[in-house]
């Protein structure tokens, strides 16, 4: 019995069997939409009769356990990031991540906002990022086809990057979620009200 997903074996296994499997993986991709921002509206047209994503065997799935691709369709604030990471970790191997639009990639118009992350790639490995302040369905379909070619060629190995340098990703994640001191010096200007009866944070 072969075990295709343990890390060591995968690299030296580019035999014919791998190609055949990649064909099947390419032809049947199941998506899990993580609809955070406004990107979610772009997906229905892709799936319905106008562009019909299902021709390529791509279909929506309800749970991370069954999904191959994780679509993050908008800006993600700190709290949303926590859910994204948990869902990503619940997905079995081989899994791919598609980031939609500029907000996900470099924070987009919220680049200087205090709670929107600016670069998704620092927290989870992203395979394909689609440009556009919400890419049109054609762009999405094109990215899907691009992903399929990458899978066929065996280059879509971002999920292994997450395993290999997990420490790096973990460090970034902890910086967001773990208890941390004030980031700017201006924190000192905080007004601390000495309540006549008791102190207040």
């Amino acid at each position, binding site marked *: 019995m072969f075990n295709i*997903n343990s890390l060591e074996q995968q690299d030296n296994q580019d035999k014919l069997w791998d190609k055949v499997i990649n064909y099947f993986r390419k032809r049947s991709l199941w998506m899990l939409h993580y609809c955070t921002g406004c990107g979610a509206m772009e997906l229905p047209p892709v799936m319905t009769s106008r562009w019909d994503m299902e021709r390529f065997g791509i279909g929506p799935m309800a749970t991370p356990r069954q999904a191959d691709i994780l679509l993050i369709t908008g800006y993600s604030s700190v709290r949303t990031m*926590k859910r994204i990471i948990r*869902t990503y970790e619940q997905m079995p191997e081989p899994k791919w991540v598609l980031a939609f639009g500029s907000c996900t990639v470099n924070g987009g118009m919220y680049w200087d906002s205090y709670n929107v992350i600016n670069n998704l790639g620092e927290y989870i490995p992203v395979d394909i990022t689609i440009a556009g302040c919400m890419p049109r369905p054609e762009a999405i379909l094109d990215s899907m086809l691009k992903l399929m070619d990458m899978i066929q060629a065996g280059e879509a190995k971002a999920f292994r990057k997450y395993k290999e340098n997990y420490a790096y990703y973990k460090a970034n994640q902890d910086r967001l979620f773990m208890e941390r001191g004030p980031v700017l010096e201006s924190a000192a200007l905080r007004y601390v009200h000495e309540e006549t009866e008791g102190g207040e944070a």
Partner: protein
Amino acid sequence: MVDKMLMMILIPLITAFLTTIILKQHKVVWTLFLAVSGYLSYTLFTMYGAWDLTWSIELGYKIFDSNLVLSLANNPLGWFFAFFASVTTMLIAMFSIAFNDDKHDSKTAPIWLILIFANIGIFFAQDWLMFFGMWEMMSMSSYFMIAHGKEIPAKAAKFYLSLSLVGTSTLLLGIISVARLSQTFDINASIDSLINLFATDYNKAILYIGLFAVTFFIKSAVFPFYMWPSKAYAESPDDFTPFLSTVMSKYGIYGIVLFILPILQNADIPALGQINEPAYILAVLGAITSVLGTILAIFETDMKKLFAYSSVANIGYIVMGLSTLSIIGIQGALFHSINHMVIKSAIFLSLAAVIYRTGEREMHKLGGLAYRMPLTFMVYLLGIISAAGIPPLNGFASKWLIIQALMSQNMLFVVIAMIFASTGAFMYLFRVLASVFLGQLPDKYKHIKEAPLLMAIPMTIIMLLMLAIGVLPGIIMKPVNAVLIGMGYDVQEASWTTVHSAFSNSDLNVTNIFYIFMAGAAIALVFYLFSAKSVKVTQDDNYTAGELPSDWGTTPERFNFSYGFYQPFKEMFNPMMDLISFDRWMAAFGKIVERISNGLSVLYTKSEGAILMLYIGVAILIIGGWII
């Protein structure tokens, strides 16, 4: 050669007496109990075929101008029930040695031994007085067994007691009225006399059969008296419940087969379609019992109560099988009563092991025990597979026989009820599996161990028994045929593997199904092994839309969905449930009797009424003189 029958009666009594004295050392007491039941099973095994073995005692009480003689005789029907009952008791005895350690000891071994003595007596009684004596002894000792010296069980047992007392008095009335007909207490003689009575006075005969039927229905919890098992089974000691639900519910069935069937078979009764009228009533009662038992079981949250109702439903199947009066039907019914013994003891033993380890009876408080108690889980799983009547195991063949018989007798609506009940059975059987053994394991039970060795042995034996009977039904079908020949049916030799049906070329080779099942398993395994490996994940790593359950403070118990498991289904039946609820009527009746009794005893406390009552008495005498 020492008289086997006498020994079979004396040994339980002597050991009962012995155990009362040394009740303190529970280990010794329960090993003695196992020894007795082992001895009984062995002797019974050797008695197969020796149908001439009898034992009688002359009581010197003059009745019907001859001295009263009570006798026991070894007959195929009695032997059939007695042997399988004692085998089940032996297995349960092995279980209760481990179960009754110092924390759980219910000190009821002596009473149970008396119950076994009565059990043997009932199955081998040749005349009605011996039957009645043993029947009364059985109901009294079962009352004390269920109550076993605790407050709440006493209340539940009181309800059982009042019903069984009603049963015994109708039995007594029936016995005396039938004995008067045939001027002797002998059972076979009374059957013949009742058959000719059918010719002369139909209504009187129906009344006499009704009296007997009431007793048997109460003891086997058929339709009008289906409420007491849920109270009695739940409260009785956990290692006694398997005996109560498997062996004791068969007394009524034995009674029906012994007395009512031969009469309905031979007496010329106006037929309704292919079967005669009383048999049809029996079928309808059986159908209602099984449907009602199933529905009530689905809504139950206490697992022992749930399986009490499940036993009621199974009794319904057996009664339906008997009511067809055809060879196939009776074969199915007898086969199912033995299957029910094996299945229910497996299920109740595994539940007792769960209660022994966790001390909890409510299903929604348990969960995920399969991971801590794998053997108990396997026994329970095989138990519910055969209880649901799924082919490779033994529950299927008997249900198949009963359905075939019902169909061949064209009793269509009874078949539909049977199918509704057996599919419904699947619902509540799975509910217990899901809420007790699967799902999240609460923190309380993280460290419970598997059932002790002495419990594990009987459970595994029963599991293998289920498989063996499932694959080779001949084990049970051969004795069943002996019984049928004993009852005068001409039935062809039972083969080891095939089960015969009334329809054209639809006989069933059960072992074949086992092979098919194995083939299917082989192919499925191939698919399973040829796919990628799987990674083991902890119990709380579930898809919860990205949320961490611990963030929101959900403990494993609250994370289990098992309380309102069939809530939508229950809401459909609620209006009907409130309308007819026998329990409320019975409780109300009990209240009325208590209020009257208080009123009367108050009447006695007041002193001034005394003389007035005296004159009322005189008045009664005077008026009596004129009128009556």
